[in-house]
């Protein structure tokens, strides 16, 4: 499904600020895989996401989806296959536009946009049905400006917008990190049910160790631009947070340094 082979990325190459974000990173995801990603500060988690989604192009290496090399495609060209939810609840929606207009834009993902109406009666019915899945009453507020919604509501909407057209790959970039615990839990629950119901191939970065172990069928750990640990489903079931931190120390020879880390 998704194949990342020998991908490297340098920031500010050739200057004193040169920083290695990724070095020869390899990752193969099978259809339906739900992989959680953890790692210390500057491990390259966000860079990995940006390289897959096309925000950045790799200096070396290839990204393939269904065998097709997409390394040189731009972000908007790749959006046909890739859905993404950002950490910032403000990032995934357009605040001055209504809920139904936002959904209409998500609905045309990967299609060419012309002069047909964005919101039609038929689409409105679809949007209502989809919004009901979230269970937070947004289906009754289709005409409301998204800027009026709370952070949690916006994030739930972003999640729905990135998934209801069934992308090949779903990227979740710490999408619960900016929310309070209750709302984060709600979004996590919604994420789980959407990914399960639609059988989406998902890659999720998180700072929450407990969440990383609980969610998904595979866990990878990153450090200094490398994937240093890949825990398959059988081992992941019995994994604890202590074991995970122990593994990190053993492989990288240092303690997990992450100022935002949540243990569980």
């Amino acid at each position: 499904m998704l194949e990342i082979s020998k991908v490297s990325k340098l920031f500010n190459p050739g200057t004193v600020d040169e920083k290695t974000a990724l070095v020869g990173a390899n990752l193969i995801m099978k259809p339906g895989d739900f992989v959680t990603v953890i790692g210390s500060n500057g491990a390259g988690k966000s860079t990995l996401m940006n390289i897959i989604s096309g925000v950045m192009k790799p200096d070396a290496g290839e990204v393939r989806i269904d065998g097709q090399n997409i390394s040189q495609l731009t972000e908007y060209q790749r959006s046909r296959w890739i859905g993404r939810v950002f950490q910032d609840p403000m990032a995934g929606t357009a605040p001055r536009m209504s809920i139904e207009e936002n959904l209409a834009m998500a609905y045309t993902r990967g299609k060419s946009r012309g002069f047909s109406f964005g919101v039609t009666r038929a689409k409105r019915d679809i949007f209502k049905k989809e919004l009901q899945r979230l269970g937070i009453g947004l289906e009754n507020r289709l005409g409301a400006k998204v800027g009026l919604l709370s952070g949690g509501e916006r994030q739930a909407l972003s999640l729905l917008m990135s998934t209801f057209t069934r992308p090949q790959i779903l990227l979740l970039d710490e999408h619960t990190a900016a929310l309070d615990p209750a709302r984060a839990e709600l979004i996590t629950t919604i994420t789980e049910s959407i990914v399960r119901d639609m059988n989406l191939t998902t890659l999720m970065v998180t700072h929450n160790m407990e969440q990383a172990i609980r969610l998904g069928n595979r866990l990878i750990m990153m450090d200094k631009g490398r994937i240093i640990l890949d825990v398959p489903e059988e081992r992941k079931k019995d994994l604890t947070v202590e074991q995970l931190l122990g593994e990190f120390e053993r492989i990288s020879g240092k303690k997990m340094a992450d100022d935002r880390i949540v243990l569980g």
Partner: protein
Amino acid sequence: MLTSMQGAVESGLLYALMALGVFITFRILDFPDLTVDGSFTTGAAIGSVMTVNGTPPWLAIICAFAGGALAGTCTGLLHTKGKINGLLSGIIMMIALYSINLRIMGKPNVSLRGFDNLFTNVSTLTVMIVFVVIVKLLLDLFFRTDLGLSLRATGDNARMIRSFGANTDITTIFGIALANALVATSGALVAQYQKYADNSMGIGMIVIGLASVIIGEAIFGSRTVFRATLAVVLGSIIYRIIYAFALRVEWLEASDMKLITAVIIIFALIVPSSRRIWKQKNIARKRTAEMLNSFENTQPGGGR
């Protein structure tokens, strides 16, 4: 007085298309486009020269529309593909158009006296009301289409709409082109109305457009696109009425108008924002007082 009022409404409608163009770049795309000063004259130049050469006035205006779109496309390309700062790409095009406009006209000004124009034999007011209403409604409809939505999203959250597959370079270029096409159309109409085109008639146009947008939004609100475009059209008319009144003040001269426009904009920009800050401060003070009150009342009172 009544005739000057009618004249003010007529000019307001003529310049309303220009204001709608400025609205598209400033408000919808969030792109401060200074091309307007040049493209307004470009429209006037194309419209006038073609009229003088015997083209039917309506065809001349369509060509002015196309000319403006071309100018806007150039600005859009400079900004998106050339990665030149938005303000600067507008200024570059404005300067370039100054020479281009002279080339189109062949001389600094063209008189249209004695030639048929759009307003010959019909009431300017009627023609313009119909024309502006049609353009306004077409714009409203456009901003509800898939392309229109992605254009609005480009100004609202470009990162988001890119992640849903819109090429924001294309939507930006398209938006700037559409805006300048409207501006040029307005220029051609103004030239036909006043029966001459002048190479300096576009100077300060961006500020007048901005004033119309701000006045309109401040008075009529901008909750929806429908409401906002209506506000811009009405704002343009109100600006011309203020202009007409200012001209009647004895110690003011016509040449002071640009200064007055600048003052109007400064007020229109500062008043709403400082009122908002003042309001918020008041609410915060009230809420704190309430909280302190309820805190004191629920204090157990023991312990001392």
